[in-house]
């Protein structure tokens, strides 16, 4: 059944793109251009996470977040500042380039005064109660080449910017299950090669969520989305990430990504 859906959607993608493909750049070309964009080795920023449930009740968390590449390995540290009852809680994760190797994750709970290791998450798991998946966090504005086959299917406009619509379908069922979605469609700004909007379809091909990357501007020469809006269509849950005080230039000390700093604080 799943294969059938997959095949038929592939067919549709193929069929529609074969008419338009004459003047549109291929999906893979676009993907390469996106990934070639500079993201900086390390970044530090203020991250405000605002989550809203389907009744409109809101949770706001403010954090200081760090990200740094160690070769192919990516490390992320998040220190909670607000609200009061979770202040000083901190989260650390090591994403290894080797897919076979499980990621390492730790959480510091100030009320216990202990750093606790937590089991690795699946790529499709939700990240700290938000609507973004671990994979979304890991990739930020990049694209995973291996997981999908892709076609450019149309031209469109998002928030007033011209873009190409790239339809991506997971390469196989296993990947789809890992990622938690079957396919997605992204609108890519062909001026600065950044994704402005992505729509995801779940494994039963129902519309799952829509992500918008907004307030995109250059910070220290690097294109940076200052707002990420995610709406989960199935649960009615909504997440808004707001980045401020973004800094690529100062660099981030390696020690930030250690259990000691996690416990001691910044």
């Amino acid at each position, binding site marked *: 059944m799943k294969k059938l859906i997959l095949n038929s959607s592939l067919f549709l993608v193929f069929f529609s793109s074969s008419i338009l493909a004459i003047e549109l750049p291929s999906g893979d070309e676009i993907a390469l251009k996106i990934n070639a964009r500079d993201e900086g080795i390390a970044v530090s920023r203020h991250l405000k996470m605002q989550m809203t*449930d389907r009744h409109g009740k809101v949770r706001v968390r403010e954090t200081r977040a760090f990200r740094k590449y160690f070769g192919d390995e990516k490390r992320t540290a998040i220190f909670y500042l607000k609200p009061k009852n*979770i202040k000083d809680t901190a*989260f650390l994760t090591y994403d290894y380039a080797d897919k076979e190797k499980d990621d390492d994750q730790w959480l510091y709970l100030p009320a216990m005064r202990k750093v*606790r290791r937590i089991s690795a998450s699946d790529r499709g798991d939700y990240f*700290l*109660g938000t609507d973004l998946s671990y994979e979304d966090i890991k990739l930020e504005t990049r694209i995973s080449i291996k997981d999908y086959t892709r076609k450019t299917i149309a031209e469109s406009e998002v928030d007033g910017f011209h873009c190409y619509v790239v339809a991506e379908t997971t390469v196989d069922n296993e990947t789809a299950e890992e990622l938690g979605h079957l396919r997605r469609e992204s609108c890519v700004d062909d001026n600065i090669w950044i994704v402005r909007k992505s729509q995801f379809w*779940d*494994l039963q091909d129902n519309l799952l969520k829509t992500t918008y990357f907004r307030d995109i501007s250059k910070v220290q020469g690097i294109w940076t989305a200052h707002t990420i809006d995610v709406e989960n269509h199935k649960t009615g849950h909504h997440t808004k990430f707001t980045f401020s005080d973004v800094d690529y230039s100062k660099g981030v000390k390696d020690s930030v990504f250690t259990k000691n700093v996690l416990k001691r604080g910044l």
Partner: protein
Amino acid sequence: MKTNQSIPHRFFFAVTAKPKTIMALAFVIIIATGAFIPTLTIDSRSEAFLPEDDPALLYRDHVEETFGLKDPMVIAVVNKGEHGVFNPQSLQLIQWLTNEVMKMPEINRDRVVSLATEDNITGNEEGMLVEKFYKNQPETQNDADNIRKAVMDFPLYLGSLVARDGSSALIVTEVYDVNEAPKVYEKLLALVERAPTHGEQLHVAGDGAVSGYLVTYINADSARLVPISVVIITLLCILSFRTWRGVLIPTVIILSATASALGFMAAAGVPIYVITTSMPILLVGVAVADSIHVLSQYYEELANHPEKGQRELVVRTMELMWRPVTVTTLTSMIGFLGISISSFMPSMQAFGLFSLIGLGVAGLFSLTFVPAALVILKPVHSSAFKTSGPDIFSRTMDKVGGWVLGHTKIVIFLAFIVCVGGVIGALKLEVNESWVENFRASEPIFLADVAINETLDGSNTLDIVIETANKEDIFKPENLRRIDALQSFLTTLPHVNGSTSIVDYIKQMNRSLNENKTSEYLIPDDVDLISQYFLLYSASGDPTDFEEQVDYDYQMALVRARLDSARYQQSKVVVEEAQKYIDYVFNTDEIKATLSGRVNVDYHWLDTLLGTQFKSVLFALVLVWLLVCVSLRSFYGGILAVIPVMLACLSVYAFMGVMGITLAVGTSMTAAIALGIGVDFSIHTLDRIKLLITDQGVEPDVALRRLFPTTGRALLFSFVAVFVGFGILGLSYVPPLSKLGMLIAFSVLISFISSMTVLPALIKQLKPAFLGYSKKCSVCERNERSALEIIKQQP
């Protein structure tokens, strides 16, 4: 009396003057009302029993919306073997079923819960471990034993997802669109059918299943029972009259009753409820009774006065019959009116109201269409009403009459015994209803419910909503402990086997973060730690993971207790005790609890059923009595008329007591309907006796005897029609309807028997003046012997 006679005479003279117009009008009415029938919809939800603005129902809807609760569809895997479901084959079966249901487009894959999907939260020295129970596909008994160990050490799923003794496990699913539940139920049944089992029993259950199943039931019932009842009534008419018109005329009356009842229902936008599906079947029986009486009278007139013209015969028949037909129609309508007025349930209100309309139209047709149709036709004798002598039915009734009038004291004594038995039965009458009893005990859905209630904590939920004063107050340890104590209290109540709330998750998290020590399965003292646990959990959970336990502001929480019984008598204890605990122990200014959930909703509406039942009976009784009083112009007559039906009602109660039938939605309507319909027999009896004595000048006791071969015969056939109508309902696949049908059939039987025995016996003993008995009773006694002599001399 003279003026009365002249008005009906003029009326029926007018009716028979333009028979074709009347008949055309009748068919127009049937077609016009019947045209609405195709627009009818079926509402088989259990909530349909309650008005939409019922506070208990509104609150439950609000709670379901707040906590995102949906009624699940469940597959239960039961293995009675040594290892229960914890053997490689059964565990693989659970995995297989889980994968298969996830493929169904109607089912929300994200909300499928089973052992194969769930994580085990444990801990070690380093921290917390969240791993699937099925780390790998279980291949050996050793793998299965490991899973068993892990599951049994994880209290949250015990009793709710897996049986505490390991003998069963559930695959819980949720459909996107509840309207698709019936379809999904069928698909799940098909899935279970082709599942690779190794001695496991598989069951499909859930609310969607119930509603889906009822639709199937309703359709199957109507398709089967309506034709049966039409065939039987037709046969009855053939047997009674042995002429074409004797069959066709009653058929038109049946059509008019059903078309108008269903047509008005459709036009009013009222859906078919489970109860109202019985309407066409019982209307067939009840509506036809009047035309049987009219036709019997007509054939009798024809046999006695073959020289008279058709129109004269018809008008004469109608002059004699209009009063009993009108009164019996009105009394039957009163029975249904009683139900419609006294019940607050939309389904019962609709049942009462539209049956009443159908009966009213049938009565109207009996008084207009029947004479019009008869007058168009040439007089044709019915071989059943020969001038040469009475047929077997007349002779039988005559023999009955002879015996009854000869043993009046025995008859009255027997009636007294029935009375006493009935009163005892009525006092013992108790409400007990459970939704699952809507199904026969052999049905898969019933078996599924039994299996789940036997092995797990139960399929019936009592929800308790906890509300605190401020946001995040649920994190406060004192509040959590209060909730914990409430849960402990609930499990001490009978039939409550378990409960879950956010407290259970907090304890489990505390344990897993403290090296998984059993001693750490408790509520921590630090409010900050508790909020940090939730952040920790979110590292691997979904944003909406605790939606069913706590609201997004952590200000409200839901405790869900599971009961293994849905029966009113059992839920009553639980609901009332829980309410007491909440009022006297739990509630403070800071934290409040409110009951909700299916068990609570059902308790609230069933609680009123006993009162509704007696109200409707009393209403019908008083109104019927008044009507008969007016019709016979005698209070005494009214009392005599209701004696047989009161006997019938009392014997129904005695019967319910003996058979262990309790008062439920269906059966609570028995008495009022039975009263309205059953009284017809005594009205016809009294009316005929009065007619014979006062209008035809027959000696009272002779009149009593003459009643049996004529009116007695007609009553026998109309009784059989009504009895068969309700008796067929007894064959329904829906147990409440089948019980309703059987009980009414039984009470109609008693009404008929007592109208033919107790009533004449009482009349003979009491010699009521309103019937034309002379006030000097000694005269009657002296005449008795000679009167009987005269009858014996008759051919």
